[in-house]
């Protein structure tokens, strides 16, 4: 297997790279990013340092092993030493495999794309994570599992600003790479990111549960530890989630528009007892985005007292749950409609880019974030731990239009083989249809190099 190496840059940068590569992985990213961002237009372009590619080649050749919600839940239900250790090893091998596929995606982008500071930053971040995890030896006892868990925890936190960075980078390179290609790239990356964070967070949650003694259940909380297997809530109550998301969206809008604004009511109809197993933060994000869009549209288009309510319908079938969100917010205007699901296209690109620049600050101050008071302590505990990157998005002020809510919600919806569609009645309102598989027996939707190269 011939090793292909990226071209060697100029001498001065070479010594700089050597210095960077000598640093421990945790310091590498910061060093690279500080160099990359201080360059000015007179110096030559400064892509991430090259590394021999045979290591990555090995990992790219491996296939990712997708898993279903049901398998995840079942596996975590009864924990023993061996199970925990075997889970740790699954994660230990899956993570580098999945990152490797994405790193190769980065590497096959045009060279000039990698010189973009945001793309370069994320690439470096991923590469360092890859290096760290792949070097972890086989885990044989609980102690090594603990060490492994702290590595995971650190990486999860370090990677919090990835989404806004990626979004900015993709917006900046779309002329070089092409808008469609950028959309595809972004979708693949986000999907893979969800999968990696999921298995990492799940493992951390399981380890924690294994270690902690059983808490006596508080009388006031509606859900107990038993209802959760790691981050999977076995019985997400649709009505409950919708009402909670409505409440938090309402508060956010009130904060932005002032307490005098009349917020439309959210009315829930249909099969009100519906439950299904899902990752709570995922479903809250999707429904939160949809409700926030609807509420904002109604407030902005139909301002004034007695705004028409937003009707949410829960429809339960044997294999799916469909949630329909209908609003009378005036619909989506024709100039945006074709670009609704794109990360890069559309007439509002420049404003998006500007707004995205303000989001990394939010992600960094995640720990001081105000979570919705409607959540019980139990649920807050589960959501907050292990760096939930979604919460910074969920609680951003509504006037910070990122233009990403719908495409991201779609990726989350499709992650467990669900779907998200929108129909607009221009001049009247919108209907969003979210379909979720109810049995949890669908595998994750991943894109590996094998499936891509086969096309």
């Amino acid at each position, binding site marked *: 297997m011939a090793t292909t190496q990226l071209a060697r840059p100029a001498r001065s940068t070479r010594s700089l790279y050597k210095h960077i590569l000598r640093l421990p992985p945790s310091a590498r990213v910061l060093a690279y990013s500080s160099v990359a961002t201080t360059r000015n237009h007179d110096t030559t372009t400064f892509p991430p340092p090259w590394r021999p590619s045979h290591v990555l080649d090995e990992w790219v050749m491996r296939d990712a092993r997708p898993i279903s919600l049901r398998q995840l839940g079942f596996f975590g239900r009864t924990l023993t030493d061996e199970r925990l250790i075997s889970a740790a090893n699954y994660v230990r091998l899956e993570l580098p495999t999945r990152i490797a596929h994405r790193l190769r995606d980065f590497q096959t982008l045009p060279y000039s794309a990698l010189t973009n500071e945001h793309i370069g930053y994320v690439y470096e971040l991923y590469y360092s994570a890859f290096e760290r995890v792949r070097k972890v030896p086989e885990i044989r006892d609980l102690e090594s599992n603990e060490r492994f868990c702290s590595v995971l925890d650190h990486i999860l936190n370090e990677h919090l600003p990835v989404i806004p960075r990626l979004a900015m980078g993709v917006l900046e390179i779309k002329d070089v790479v092409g808008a469609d290609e950028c959309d595809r790239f972004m979708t693949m990356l986000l999907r893979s990111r969800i999968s990696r964070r999921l298995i990492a967070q799940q493992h951390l949650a399981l380890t924690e549960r294994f270690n902690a003694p059983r808490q006596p259940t508080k009388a006031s909380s509606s859900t107990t530890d038993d209802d959760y297997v790691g981050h999977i809530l076995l019985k997400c109550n649709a009505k409950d989630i919708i009402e909670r998301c409505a409440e938090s969206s309402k508060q956010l809008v009130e904060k932005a528009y002032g307490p005098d604004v009349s917020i439309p009511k959210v009315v829930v109809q*249909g*099969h009100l007892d519906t439950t299904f197993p899902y990752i709570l933060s995922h479903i809250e994000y999707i429904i939160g985005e949809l409700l926030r869009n609807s509420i904002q549209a109604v407030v902005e288009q139909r301002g004034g007292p007695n705004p028409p309510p937003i009707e949410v*319908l829960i*429809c*339960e*079938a044997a294999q*799916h749950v*469909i949630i*329909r969100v209908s609003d009378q917010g005036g*619909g989506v205007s*024709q*100039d945006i409609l074709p670009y609704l699901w794109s990360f890069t296209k559309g007439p509002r690109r420049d404003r998006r880019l500007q707004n995205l620049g303000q989001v990394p600050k939010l992600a960094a101050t995640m720990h001081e974030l105000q979570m919705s008071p409607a959540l019980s302590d139990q649920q807050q505990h589960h959501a907050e731990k292990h760096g939930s990157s979604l919460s910074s998005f969920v609680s951003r002020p509504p006037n910070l239009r990122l233009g990403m809510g719908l495409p991201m919600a779609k990726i989350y919806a499709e992650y467990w083989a669900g779907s998200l*569609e929108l*129909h*607009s*009645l*221009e*001049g*009247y*309102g919108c*209907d969003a*249809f979210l379909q979720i598989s109810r049995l949890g027996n669908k595998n994750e939707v991943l894109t590996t190099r094998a499936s891509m190269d086969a096309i």
Partner: protein
Amino acid sequence: MISRGAGLRHHPLRALVTRPALRHVQTKAVTDGDIARFASQPLHPLTLADLCKHGRPPLSEESLLHSANFTLSILPSRLAHRIQSLRNLPYIVVANPNVNKIHGNYVHSLSTIMPYAEKRIETLEDEVKFTDAVAELVQTHSNTIAVLAKGFLEARKYISAKQVTDFLDEHLRARIGTRLIAEQHIALHVSSQPHKEANKNDSQYHAPDGSTYIGVVDTALKAASLIRTCENTVGEICELKYGVRPTVKIIGQPETTIAHVPMHIEYVLTELLKNSFRATIEAGMEREPVEVTIAPSASETQAAAALNTATESAKPGKVSKKLAAVSNRDQGFVDLSAGPNDTNSNIRPLAQSTPGVTIRIRDRGGGISPDVYDKLWNYGFTTFNEDEIQEKVSGGGQGVMALDVISGGAGGGSSLAGLGYGLPLGRAYAEYFGGGIAVQSLWGWGTDVYLSLRGVGKI
């Protein structure tokens, strides 16, 4: 297709059909060379503006001749393309008597138009004869869909469902355009002054009340009244068949009007309401009204006003030869085919933001099951089992009746279970001028159907 819908009692075609002259239309033999020659001409992309650009009736002699020549310029190539498409089907399929009959009809129609082709119509007498030929064409092809459906059903062993779907998608869209231009010319002809005096027998034909019509286009078509009409029609069938009658509740902006072809929209709405009503009844939810929301696009009223001024000042000019060529498949999609128009015309091609109306039909009929959902847009081909097909193919009285129902459009026959052509055909009509149909099923609850329609472009 002659629709027997309520709003069209005064269809101009009735007047012409009764004329004895119809039986003696002049023909000229069609050779393969002729077909090839006409088929090599590019297809003219049809827009609503094309239909209206000759002016409001009654037309002057000059405008009438202009309309005749425009129609003459596009009919032969359209017919030739259809003949070629049919000839591209497998031999054994075209050999089927029903399919063969349709093929023969097209060749015959081309033979009646050929005497006028590649020449200009300069006199009123020629125009009358030409219009007769066009009327005969419309008459001949009025039951094409039913006959083709039967033919394909009989030949189902020799052709795949996908081939049928692809062929029919193209063919039916082309048919819509051809009939439209033909019927439009006939309507303009009949309502124009020079002929009213010459034919005293035509007293049965009266122009529809109000001056909102330009031929078959109603520039102020009120969506809500059309919906009520269809509600009544379908409701009566339901009462006859099931004993109960669901109702329709209209919300949104019922006063909305749009410039469009009433015949088409009536067909689509009838099909959609048929589906909703039947599902509602079979789910036992007939007390729940079917909810219809009418949502106009913002600048809709502007467009109607623009259309009024445009047609008044339209001057007949040379028929533009600079026609953007369009493929068979795309001819039904106006965005793709909106090319440079006649420079004398004041109506510009449709822009992306052409205003129109979106109609959402929401029912509680239990939804569409996932396996049926995949076959929704097939031409009824694969949703039947062998027994049902045998029954239809053997042409038992009931079977043929059902077929006539589909081609007859709204108001015909008493059966609700047709051959499954309603949805795909409805979509063809909706898409023809840049609209569309989207179906969203909530299995276990109901169905939402979104019908979007575009009107004439604004100036």
